[in-house]
């Protein structure tokens, strides 16, 4: 057995399950959902087992796919953290969402590809598996419904092409595109910009409505939600690996500043869209992009606290991405509590911890960065307001698909709530090691061990305060089950803020489409006329063409 083959185990479990499900399904044995769900949890367990058993990084060197593109897998603290980001929501969704056996198999295979993208040791291997996961998801999305794939596909392929270009450029300049082997000087600003473009497009980190939000426009959520859950973390994985390739920093502080501003903008824009959402679904659609903005800001800070906050935020967002599509669409007061406490992020939820740690990281750096932290806090406030308004919004039915799963939503909500109390454990066991893998972490910069999170700027007594709050939260949780549903308005209440720029992209697109070549020049730009001339093969035309080219090449 080649060394490091155990790395492929989680993906093999999922891939094997997909094949078994398809063969069994073809033979009339409908065991798709339970088998795939079990395989997802098994893959999660095996990932943890391999990581904790190895007590260090493990590598698997495969064959050379292409010049500069060797198939390599690497399990270290970073890939472990991001592997969890992919597997945890996928396991929840595959367990609690209803799928046919064909869809279950495809979903398992997609999860395996996405997992391999986060376990990949080099940019080109990541691009291969990332592209594969995106393709598999496209097939499932289009097989279900055409809607919202018009944005998804170009964004993903654009990001993928940018990543491929970055990979080959890195390989040309340094002779390798393996994250841990790239010389520090090879990661230039230009190459990093390509990686950043891939990350922003792939994870939907844009100030306007990204594909992660548009997935919620689909009549059924079971494919779109999986797409968000498994593809969203990969962009951030690239940004973290860029730190490793750059020797603990990005090529220029301006790049950090630019992405930090972009992160704050993304968070603010998502919050602005959330508070103006016409339906509750439209509000939920902005939750993951909003957290994505926080994560981008945190990563761009480039400090140990920042990167730790970033990893924590992505981990939290990935669980949230599983919770939201599982929420039953009711008007229960308990749902209001979930919208405000879990989605917007109030103590002791992990969504609160992630946002708080990001703002703290900004304040800790000081100067202009702190103002970005304050901007993120304002986005947080807007999300709170949107959460309060969301309970009044009309519920958008889920087409043919039955409403979410109370059990699944309960489990995911429990994980998020408990995550706040266990934040110390998550940070000290998952996030800080991932940070230490890519940049130096001075001792004590993030203290508190498993009980609390202590940074220079602030603290969160995870166990000491979070645990009692968690116990107290049982009271409203029990009370909420008997309470009457809140009255939902027939039409949505007016938004708190009307952003003047929301319709700009559409207007720009319309203007662009309205552009016309002036009549007197139209024949010059008429491809059909040019083709007809080519097809007729007039000797004079070709003679002129040849003469023109002959003159051109001899100038």
């Amino acid at each position, binding site marked *: 057995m080649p060394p490091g083959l155990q790395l492929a185990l989680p993906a093999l479990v999922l891939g094997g399950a997909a094949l078994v499900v398809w063969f069994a399904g073809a033979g009339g044995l409908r065991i798709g959902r339970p088998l795939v769900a079990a395989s997802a949890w098994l893959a999660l367990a095996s990932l943890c087992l391999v990581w904790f058993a190895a007590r260090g990084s493990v590598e698997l060197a495969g064959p050379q796919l292409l010049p500069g593109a060797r198939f390599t897998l690497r399990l270290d603290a970073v890939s472990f953290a991001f592997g969890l980001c992919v597997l945890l929501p996928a396991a929840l969704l595959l367990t609690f969402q209803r799928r046919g056996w064909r869809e279950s198999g495809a979903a398992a295979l997609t999860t395996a590809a996405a997992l391999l993208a986060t376990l990949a040791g080099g940019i080109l291997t990541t691009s291969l598996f990332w592209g594969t996961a995106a393709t598999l998801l496209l097939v499932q999305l289009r097989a279900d419904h055409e809607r919202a794939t018009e944005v998804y596909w170009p964004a993903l392929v654009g990001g993928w092409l940018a990543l491929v270009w970055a990979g080959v450029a890195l390989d040309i300049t340094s002779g390798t595109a393996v994250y841990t082997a790239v010389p520090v000087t090879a990661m230039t600003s230009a190459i990093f910009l390509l990686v950043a473009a891939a990350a922003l497009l792939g994870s939907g980190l844009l100030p306007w409505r990204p594909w992660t939000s548009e997935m919620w426009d689909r009549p059924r959520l079971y494919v779109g939600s999986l797409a968000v859950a498994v593809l969203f973390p990969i962009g951030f994985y690239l940004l973290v690996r860029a730190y490793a390739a750059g020797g603990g920093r990005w090529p220029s502080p301006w790049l950090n500043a630019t992405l930090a501003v972009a992160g704050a903008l993304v968070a603010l824009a998502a919050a602005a869209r959330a508070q103006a959402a016409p339906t509750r679904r439209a509000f939920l659609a902005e939750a993951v992009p909003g957290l994505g903005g926080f994560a981008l800001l945190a990563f761009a800070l480039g400090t140990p606290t920042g990167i730790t906050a970033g990893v924590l935020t992505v981990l939290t967002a990935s669980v949230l991405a599983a919770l939201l599509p599982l929420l039953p669409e009711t008007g229960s007061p308990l749902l209001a509590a979930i919208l405000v406490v879990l989605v917007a992020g109030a103590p002791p939820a992990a969504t609160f911890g992630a946002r708080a740690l990001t703002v703290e990281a900004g304040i800790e750096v000081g100067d202009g960065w702190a103002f970005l932290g304050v901007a993120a806090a304002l986005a947080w406030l807007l999300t709170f307001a949107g959460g309060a308004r969301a309970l009044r919004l009309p519920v958008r039915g889920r087409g043919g698909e039955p409403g979410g799963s109370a059990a699944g939503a309960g489990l995911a909500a429990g994980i998020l709530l408990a995550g706040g109390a266990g934040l110390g454990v998550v940070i000290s066991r998952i996030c800080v090691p991932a940070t230490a893998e890519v940049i130096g972490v001075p001792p004590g910069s993030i203290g508190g061990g498993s009980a609390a999170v202590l940074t220079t700027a602030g603290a969160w007594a995870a166990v000491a305060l979070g645990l009692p709050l968690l116990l107290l939260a049982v009271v409203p949780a029990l009370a909420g089950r008997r309470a009457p549903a809140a009255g939902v308005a027939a039409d949505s209440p007016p938004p708190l803020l009307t952003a003047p720029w929301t319709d700009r992209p559409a207007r720009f697109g319309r203007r662009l489409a309205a552009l016309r070549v002036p009549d007197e020049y139209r024949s010059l730009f008429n491809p059909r006329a040019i083709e007809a001339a080519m097809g007729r*093969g*007039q*000797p004079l035309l*070709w003679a002129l063409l040849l003469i023109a080219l002959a003159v051109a090449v001899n100038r």
Partner: protein
Amino acid sequence: MTVLAIAAVVIAWLGGAFLVLSDARRGVALGVALYAIGLAATLYNIPPAALALGLAGLGAAALRLRDGPPRWGTLPPGSTPRLLLCVVSGVLAAFAGASILAGPGPAPVRIVILLGGAMGAARLLSTLRREAALASTTVMTLALGAAAAVAGDRAAPTVVAAAALAAVLLGVLPAAETKARGA
């Protein structure tokens, strides 16, 4: 010798002109035949090539006589542009072959090859008659063979033989269009 060379070039040009100016089997066949004779004559110092290409050209011309409209069809109404093309290509080929190109082979062969290529291509690109298109391709193939012969590469005999064979095969192809069947 020079007179013979000039005469050969003129005969080849006449062949090309007949090819360009004729819309029926006899004119086209005469064009191919004259061009083949002229070409063979200019290749007198490479007898095997001259023989192969000359005979192939004459064979192709003879085969062309078997189908297509049974008349000369030379200089039909509206041929002035074609006439102009013949004159211009003749002059240009003579100028380029004699004073611009330094090879391959002697100037008369170069001129004849250029005439074959230029007039054959011009006819092929402008005609809608199958027999004329086939004859033009034949002429270009003969020119290719001649160029290979004078270029004097190691594989020249093979190429000349291939060109001669191709010319005959092109002659074998019928002039009647066959309509499509199936998908």
